[in-house]
Structure formats: C-alpha cells, structure tokens
C-alpha cells in the first residue's frame, strides 16, 4: 500500500498529471498480471479463444452424460458396433452392443433410438463417442505433458542460472544437444523404444514428449532469471544479508516465472497436436482408445474414397483444429501484450 501512495504522489507533483486511480484488481494482482488480463479481456480474438476453450471444458466434464460409456469401468474404450470394415454414415443406427442412450437424445431428436451421430470408422468404432471422450484425453495429455516439461524446464533453468559458471555451461550445452533433433522425429523414436516396455497406451508418447519438450522453458526461465538477478531489489536483498537460496526463491523466481508460465500454458495446443500426430502415426494409444489422432488414422485406409467417408476426417479433425485454435487465439493475444514494442499501444 505504501508504494501505491508514493507513486501517486510522485505522479501528482512531478508532472501535474491527473491522479490515476489504481483499480482494486490491479492492486491485488500486481501491475503486470493485471495488464495481461485486461489485454485478454478486451481483445476479440482472445475472447473467442476463451469461449471455444470453455466449450471444450464443458464437453470434457460432461462426457459421461453426453456419450454414456458401454462399461463404466473402462470409459475410454470406444464402443464398437460389430467388426465390418466399411465405415457407416452419420445417423445410422446401432446394431449390437449399444451403450445406453444419453439424456439429450429424446428432447433433441424426438426418438429413443440411439444412433451414430458422426458415423463409424472402419471396424465400426463410434466416431461421436471417440470425439467426446477424446476431449478428455486431449486435456489430460496436454496438462500432464505441459506440467512435466515446465517442471523440468524450471529445475534446469533455475539450477543453471543459480550456480552459473561451469554448471550453467554444461546444462546449456546439454540443452543444445537436445535441440539438435527435430522434435517430432525424436519423440517418434523414443515412443517406439518405450512401447515394448509400457505396452500400447498414452504413456510412451507422453514420456517421449516430456523428454524432448523441456528445452524451451529452461532457456526462457534462465534468461529471465539472469536479467532479474541484476535488478536493484535483488541487490537490496543481498545488502541486508539474505541468503542466496532465499534470494533465489523469494525474490528472483516469483518475479521471473510469470512469462514462462504464460508461454507454457499457451503451449498446450501444440502439445495436443504433436500427441495426436504420434497417435496418428501409430506409436500412441492402443486400438479403440478414445483419441482424436487415432480416429483420424482410420482415414488412412480410405484415402481414395475420402469423399464418401468424409466423416472420418471431418469430425475428429475439426475437434482437434478448434481445440488447438482456441489456445493459439489466446496465445497470439498474449504474445502481443508481452511484446515490449507494442507496450502502451493498446495491443495490436
């Protein structure tokens, strides 16, 4: 509180400017976070992004109601309607092993007969079910991978900038080595190596993406820590005799971590794309697991007849596109807000 008053006095006396009232929210969150949030709340692109995101959160949370599983114990297994190779068109009816009808079916369609709203793939996996439950997979995988890469990145970045010198040099060279591989190929091979150990599941691709995904965050946080290290308040803390560790964790890290956190959260869309790509290439989940990448991989057998079986591509493809798009819309707005050249210009 003392600092806000002081700033106000300074502005009032020095420039004769009208006193700027600082909103309560800004006082609570601090100027930087407040500026970002205000920018996001006023930008039409980011608002659209948040709206789409909210829609997907709703689908993920309400998945058991929107598409009830066949067996509650294994909800991620897509129910299949027989084994025929030829995909079936949207709105066709279930023949066998039909899960229970969702609550919205009768009010919306007026019939009680459960259908395949998006059709089926080759092998009769229900696309609608896969798209709905695939939303959960996307969130889960995205959050786990983003969280883990962020953690590794922060540990490496903090250790590197804290100790400096030889340690810094070695860690950064190791980072460089990890960066020499094209991400997708590296993740592809590591997932292939891990598959015999963990079996076909989300684990191999997840681990592979964590191992090759942390370098950007490590570099980012290291750079921010190095620049914050030189600030006056760090010097002040040092002068009053604070220990190194305390300076690092109480003074430097909380101030340096914010941009990295933002970048990481905006990275979730990319993570989901790459995971789906690995799944699409066949080193991801087991057959029949609700995952957008795998649903799309069914289309590969029907390349010559895609105009007939368009629904295998279009429904899971659009789900994936909009999921990623929502993240990138928000991310683009964030990037503008953070761009120092755009600062004070009311965004771009």
């Amino acid at each position: 509180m003392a600092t806000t008053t002081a700033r106000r006095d300074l502005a009032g006396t020095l420039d004769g400017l009208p006193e700027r009232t600082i909103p309560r929210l800004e006082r609570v969150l601090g100027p930087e976070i407040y500026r970002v949030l205000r920018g996001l709340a006023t930008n039409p692109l980011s608002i659209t992004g948040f709206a789409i995101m909210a829609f997907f959160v709703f689908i993920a949370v309400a998945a058991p109601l929107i598409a009830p599983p066949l067996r509650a114990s294994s909800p991620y297994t897509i129910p299949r309607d027989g084994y025929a190779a030829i995909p079936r068109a949207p709105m066709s009816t279930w023949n066998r092993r039909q899960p229970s009808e969702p609550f919205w079916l009768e009010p919306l369609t007026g019939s009680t007969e459960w259908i395949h709203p998006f059709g089926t793939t080759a092998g009769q996996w229900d696309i609608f079910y896969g798209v709905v439950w695939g939303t959960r997979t996307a969130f889960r995988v995205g959050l786990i991978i983003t969280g883990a890469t962020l953690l590794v990145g922060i540990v490496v970045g903090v250790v590197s900038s804290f100790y400096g010198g030889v340690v810094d040099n070695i860690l950064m060279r190791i980072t460089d080595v990890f960066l020499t591989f094209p991400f997708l190929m590296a993740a592809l091979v590591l997932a292939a190596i891990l598959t015999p150990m963990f079996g076909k599941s989300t684990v191999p691709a997840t681990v592979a993406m964590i191992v090759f995904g942390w370098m950007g965050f490590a570099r980012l946080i290291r750079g921010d820590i190095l620049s914050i290290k030189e600030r006056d308040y760090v010097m002040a803390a040092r002068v009053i005799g604070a220990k190194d560790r305390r300076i690092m964790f109480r003074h430097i890290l909380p101030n340096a971590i914010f941009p990295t956190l933002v970048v990481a959260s905006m990275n979730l869309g990319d993570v989901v794309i790459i995971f789906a790509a690995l799944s699409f290439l066949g080193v991801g989940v087991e057959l029949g697991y609700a995952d957008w990448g795998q649903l799309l991989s069914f289309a590969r057998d029907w390349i010559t007849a895609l105009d007939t079986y368009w629904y295998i591509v279009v429904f899971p493809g659009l789900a994936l596109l909009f999921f990623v798009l929502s993240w990138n819309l928000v991310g683009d707005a964030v990037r503008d807000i953070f761009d120092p050249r755009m600062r004070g210009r009311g965004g771009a």
Partner: protein
Amino acid sequence: MTNYIIRRLIIVPFLLMGTTVLVFVMMSFLTPAERSSLYLRDVPRNEAAWDSAIRRYCLDCPIYVQYYRWLVGVPIGGTDEISGGILRGNLGYSRTAHQPVVDLIKQRFPATLELALWAVIPIVGGGVWLGVLSAVNHNKPIDQVARVFSIIGYSFPTFVFGLLVLMIFYAKLEWFPPGRISDWASAIIRSPSFHQYTSLITVDSILNLRFDIFLDALRHLVLPIVTLSYLSWALLLRVTRSSMLETLRQDYVTTARAKGLTEKAVINKHARPNALIPVVTIGGATVVGLLNGVVITETIFDFPGIGSAAARAALQLDVVSVLGFVLFTGLILVLANLLVDILYVFIDPRVILE
C-alpha cells in the same frame, strides 16, 4: 568476426558428439538382440548364433565400451573387414527394409530434398509477402485477415489439413494424386535411356528434356507443398510483420518519406531489406519445421522420402533405422543452424559480436 566464426565452428564437433551420446543412450534401452542389427544384416536364428553375435559385437559389455564400438566399429575376426561404426558411415541395418540404413537414407533423401527445395519457395515468398502486407496495413482489415488466416494455418494439424486436401483434390476432383510420380513415368525414369543426374526428378526430367515427366512430378508435389507452406506461414508472417513494423518507425524511413519518395519506394527499397534481417534468424527454425513437417506430410501423401520411411520404421518398432534417421536429420540441423549464424554476420553489419 573471424573469431566468432571460429568459435562457432569449434562448438559443432562437441554438439555432434553430444548428439551421438544422446542417440546411444536411447539405443541402450533396446535389448542386445535388437541392438544386433547395428552390425548384422540378418537376425540370428538360433540360440547359439545369438550368443556368438552378442559376444562378437560385445552387446552386453559396459555401455562406454559399446558406445566406443558403435562409433568406430567392430573388426570381424580373421579378416580386415570392420562391421558397424557410425564414424565410418555405417548406421546399422534396417530390419524392416532389409538393407543398410545408410542405403535407405541415400535412396529416400532425394525425394525429401526435392520436396523441401520446392516448398521453400512458397513458404519464404508467401510468408514474407504476407508479413510485409500485414505490417504496411497495420491494424487495417487486411492485417486482421492475414493474421487470422495464419493463426488458423498454425493451428491446423498437418495430418488433418493433408487429409482434407486429399479428400477434396484427390478423392473428389482427382486433380492431384498422392505419391511421387505416376507409374508410367516411373517406368521411364528407371529405364537406361533416362539419365539420373541428381535423383531429383524435376531437375533430371528437364535435363533429359522430358517435360511430360516434369509436369507429372510437379503435379504430385502440389498437395504436399501446399500443406507444408500453409502450415509454415504463421511463423514467418509474425516475424516479418513485427520486424517490418519496427523498421517503419525508424528515422531513416521518415527521412526517405520526407525527401518525397513514393510510399512504394520507401517500403521496397528502404524498409523491407532491413526488416528482413531478423527473418534470416528463423531460417534454422524453418528447417526444423520442414523436417518435422515432412514426417507427417510424406506419410499422408505417400511420398517416398525419409519422413515416411522413419514413420513406417517407428510403427514397426525398427528403432535402429529410426535412430539412424534421427542422427542424419540432427546432422542436417546442426549444419543449417551453423550456416544461418554465419550468414547473419555477413548480412547485418550492425551485429557486434563480443
């Protein structure tokens, strides 16, 4: 400057060394049996053959011994021949393609190179053009449209976009087929009268004066190129746009305007060349993007390059081949980044290197 280049060159061997270590660490997760295809073309059939293979190639030795042998190769007892050794250019044998990994790369790489070279033209040209257009019309509708267009491209998963264009332009309209070349053309290319100078079909066909083959190859390239470039424009557009915006605020641009030059001359002659300098720095990132992109693009369009070969090998858990591809692409990346860093010094005289 010379100092900088020398220092940059010294790092390269260490980086490559680190790369081999990382690849070998991944290799060590394999069983000795799987590692045997580093040295053996055929998987041994019985127990005794296994044991002798493992002993001969030291596949259960301590890891540093194995690493050393992997680098320099293992002499075959009684003869002068040496088996394996990546420094000797031997990356092991592909279990699924039944040939040495190096041969597989040699066979597949021209296709990828051809695709990448053709794709670079629209990627760079289109990206820079859109970026400049966006910056010059800052915050006008055209700027917003270009940005939304690029955000959508950036969000489009390669395989979804690829499948959609295949659905429209191949399955529906039958304009552009997948693959690298039609069967009739492929037969001509393999015939002895057709000289393969470069293994790049588009170049060879012109050198052989077979324009029908050139057109056929181009027709197969269209969809992969469209896919690769639409998805790569976002990054270039963003960098060009923000750099151009920055440049347009410089004093020398104001000076150019003040002395009465047309806006076109100001932008084309004064602003754009300077704005493009930072764009060079993302040359490395573009190469990375392309190498990532080809894995999926080639798989979808059934294009026989190293990307689709790597994907197929990974699917069949033929790890030795994929690691060979990874090592090879890693090498390309290291060299590409080196080139970009050095070019940068020459392009921008303002860069002062400590």
